[in-house]
């Protein structure tokens, strides 16, 4: 059977802030036997425009992303938030443009969040990472509540001998990021992040892992401001792939 052709959408935030998450995703997919292509014209899925009420901007970026990725067997995204935007919102966006709606629908059916793809589609037996230590897991809102990402990252982490998962209370509570919310109502956003950090500290785990970089930047920023220089904040792809 031919290898699966996977288009990797690294997301704009990973591109700008943490390329290593993109490379980790690439490594995980390639290790699992996929032919991975990273279209080099990709920018942003358009979610910030959509959630800010800029329909025109959101539609333009959706069309661009669809055109770049619809040729692949699968589209994989290391983010529940961007993944959900592509999978759910693109279709509703084009309710009145049937040809684009159909393309969006077809693409939605082949779009997966990274851990979901690894665990549910590829059903990988092992992962290449060699991380050792206790981690706690933050469930990001869109991944959890819109894409059903809960068991998948945990199942993958459970395949790593060196990793112990110590669940925190409130792991499903929002970290307060909310995209542009974080800069529109910065103080409220940071206060919500503070509660999340308290949960992380109470878990006793020296590292928090999650599947969405937006949340992770928010949590890391708050931890550092609270004076915590040691708790590691890692994307699940980095843990699963191991550092090169």
């Amino acid at each position, binding site marked *: 059977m031919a290898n699966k052709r996977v288009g990797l959408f690294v997301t704009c935030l990973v591109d700008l*802030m943490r*390329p290593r998450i993109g490379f980790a995703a690439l490594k995980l997919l390639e290790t699992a036997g996929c032919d991975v292509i990273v279209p080099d014209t990709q920018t942003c899925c358009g979610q*910030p425009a959509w*959630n800010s009420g*800029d329909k025109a*901007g959101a539609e333009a*970026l959706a069309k661009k992303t669809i055109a770049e990725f619809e040729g692949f067997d699968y589209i994989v995204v290391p983010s529940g938030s961007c993944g959900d935007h592509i999978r759910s919102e693109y279709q509703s966006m084009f309710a009145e443009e049937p040809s684009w709606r159909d393309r969006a629908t077809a693409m939605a059916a082949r779009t997966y969040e990274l851990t979901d793809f690894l665990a549910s589609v590829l059903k990988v037996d092992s992962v290449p990472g060699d991380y050792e230590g206790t981690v706690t897991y933050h469930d990001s809102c869109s991944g959890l509540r819109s894409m059903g990402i809960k068991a998948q990252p945990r199942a993958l982490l459970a395949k790593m001998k060196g990793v112990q998962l110590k669940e925190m209370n409130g792991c499903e509570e929002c970290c307060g990021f909310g995209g542009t919310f974080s800069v529109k109502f910065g103080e*409220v*956003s940071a206060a919500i992040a503070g509660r999340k950090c308290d949960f992380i500290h109470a878990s006793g785990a020296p590292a928090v892992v999650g599947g969405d970089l937006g949340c992770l*930047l928010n949590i890391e920023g708050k931890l550092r401001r609270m004076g915590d220089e040691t708790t590691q904040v890692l994307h699940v792809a980095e843990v699963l792939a191991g550092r090169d």
Partner: protein
Amino acid sequence: MEIKSMRFKANSEASLANVVLQGNLKNAKGKFVTKRAEAIKELDDFEGTRDAAAAIRNKVIDNLDLWLERFETKAQETGAQVMWAKDGAEVCRLVTEIARKHGVTKVTKSKSMLSEEAGLNQALEAAGIQPVETDLGEYILQVNDNEPPSHIIAPAVHKSLDDVADLFHKVHGTPRKTEIPALTREAREVLRGHFLTAEMGLSGGNFLVAETGSVALVTNEGNGRMVTTMPKVHVVITGIEKVIPTLEDLSTLMRLLPRSATGQSISNYFSILTGVKKPEEHDGPEHLYFVLVDAGRADVVGGEFHEMLRCIRCGACMNHCPVYQTIGGHAYGWVYPGPMGSVLTPLYAGIENAIDLPHAATLCNQCGVVCPVKIPLPELLRKLREKQTDAGLRPLTERIGLRVWAWVAQRPALYGLGASLGARYLKWLAGGNKSIRLLPAAQEWTNGRDFPAPQGQTFREMYAARRKSAAQGDAK
């Protein structure tokens, strides 16, 4: 009630800075959440019940005029009078007229959020009629200089035991009590006299049942029964969207309402009140009035926000909202706080009067998943944002910023250059540290937290370089 929603941002920051309030919110947080989670486990098919409840509410909203007419006819048959109010001012006028007609000098009130919308207490006072709030939470707020409620079912949830102890000591002139039973007893003693002397009782209505012309009331303190049965006049004020077809439908909705609201299987009191006192009956009002209020609701029917009219006012959305939990209800600036309020306030009070509210959410969808009638609250908030943008109501800098960003993001080469420069700039700002303490262009972020340092190069640059070196390796 005066709309202060335009001050949401300042209000929210004041809430964060209020140490006492923050302590009270922290104590309250999670209590309803935990109890609800336990209570819904009692239902065999919670999701199915939600679907059924949403269907009942949709059925009504789709033909609201028909169901209201049916209710009106039935209610009139039971001896009630049905009146229609197009806005809060008309509510005040009608209720004052009813009170005058019956020579009323004192009105006992069970909780009604619509009375808050209309500012009814002030109107009654201005007409020389004394309104007495008898729900304990509402009573606490009324004696605290008419403080507005901060939650739709737990109006004084932002107050601590200490706050109430101080307040009662001050307004009742009694020794300060610190035990909850002693404080509630004190309130009961004050209220008992009012129950015995009020000539008119005023309540809200959780549901209006069309097939019987009844109002259903869900309460926990028993005050609702005192208010609706003791005085000779009972006035029900409620929104036109509260009607439901049958008692059977009521039983479906009642499986969800108390569980979603307070985490109770059933509220302490649940009353279905039908008609005036009949000659052979011993209690009940001689005169029963329904004041059914539009106040913006009819305009929502059939439009893109019609799903909001399904709301049964349980408060689960705010109980589960990370923003509400952090700042409390007052910051939202009007009667309805939290996610449902952030949709209702712009719809009822005008989107131009609540610019911040649709944005005052992280779109985490915790509200959407707990809503007993499956209102897609995040989607409605997003649609309101779109309406604001279309109407040019968002700040100019935000509109231009978004426009420029979206334009650039459609041009990969330009975007790549911008991202590359951005990554380098942020890295330079971090100056070798793990994070940036102050981002000049995004102080909203760095006021409350650091901004982690980027790696310094973009993925696309690094990926291109990696592929180039791999290709060179292959060539050798």
